[in-house]
């Protein structure tokens, strides 16, 4: 934020300047995101374990997921990240109205992602692919293979569910920011708030970028 800006957010007493305050906020968010990566880590390790111990079952299970919807969803989320980056840029230029509009678009794409994901879950419930007593994939009868496929879907629902929860929090943050951006500081947030929320949004995008090939593309061609 430029020093000649008339509408600066209040400077907290522990910071010497607004630049330092903004940096501390970004740094705090990055530390949080690093811990979030470790939060998703065990799920990724579980997947690695499954892939090493039940490679054939993982491939069979992965072919049960809907690749078309998964790919469309990846495109939706990548585009939402692009909108978020544009919103951060607009906020830096102090164009808060444009930033708010871009945040609305980002949130809308996030909701579209959740809707598509919900439809996929609905389909998988219908195909008896939710782990539990009713788990019955239609193409495997060998108990060891069924067990491997069930483990895959346990990870699938845990990982996509945790990701969807994060996205829901991201959408809420976008909507909240969009509403409070109308007020100039000190009543509303400073322009750097959009960037900090953006870091979180992009992280959720990165998690999906990693989940997409693991859950949808494994042995898709059958080999």
């Amino acid at each position, binding site marked *: 934020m430029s020093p000649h800006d008339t509408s600066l957010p209040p400077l907290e007493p522990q910071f010497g300047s607004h630049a330092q305050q903004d940096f501390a906020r970004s740094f705090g968010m990055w530390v949080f995101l*690093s811990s979030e990566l470790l939060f998703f880590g065990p799920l990724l390790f579980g997947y690695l374990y499954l892939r090493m111990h039940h490679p054939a079952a993982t491939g069979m299970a992965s072919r049960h997921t809907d690749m078309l919807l998964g790919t469309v969803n990846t*495109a939706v989320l990548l585009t939402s990240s692009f909108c978020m980056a*544009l919103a951060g840029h607009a906020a830096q230029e102090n164009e808060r109205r444009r930033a708010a509009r871009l945040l609305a678009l980002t949130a809308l794409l996030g909701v579209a992602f959740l809707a598509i994901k919900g439809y996929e879950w609905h389909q998988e419930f219908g195909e008896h692919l939710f782990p539990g007593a009713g788990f019955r994939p239609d193409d495997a009868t060998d108990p060891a293979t069924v067990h491997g496929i069930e483990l895959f879907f346990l990870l699938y629902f845990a990982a996509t569910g945790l990701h969807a929860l994060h996205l829901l929090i991201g959408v809420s943050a976008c909507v909240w920011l969009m509403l409070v951006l109308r007020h100039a500081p000190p009543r509303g947030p400073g322009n750097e708030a959009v960037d900090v929320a953006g870091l979180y949004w992009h992280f959720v995008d990165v998690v999906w970028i990693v989940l997409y090939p693991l859950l949808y593309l494994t042995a*898709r061609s059958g080999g």
Partner: protein
Amino acid sequence: MDKATRPLVLTWIALMALLATTAGCALLRLGWLNTAISLAIAFAKALLVAIVFMRLRRAPALLRLAAVAGAVTLVLLFGLSLTDYVTRTELKAPWQQPATVAPRFGSG
């Protein structure tokens, strides 16, 4: 397209191109290369988002360090966990469906 947003637009185009490539390659029968290609492309996409969208390109060293710390710790934990999981014989968990567990001597 103004000059400042050009990197963002180019990154979005690159991300879409990479997505199309990874989806296309997944449909070809390439054996182990399928996994290698999809993971390499996922890594490239994640780097693009982190460096351009998350502004690591112009970030101070301390921010870059905080960003890398999580990834490095994750790799360390993966390595340490693997030393256990690749060397241990797989024990059947008690909640498995009975048919998947070989009957043990002496069990009713």
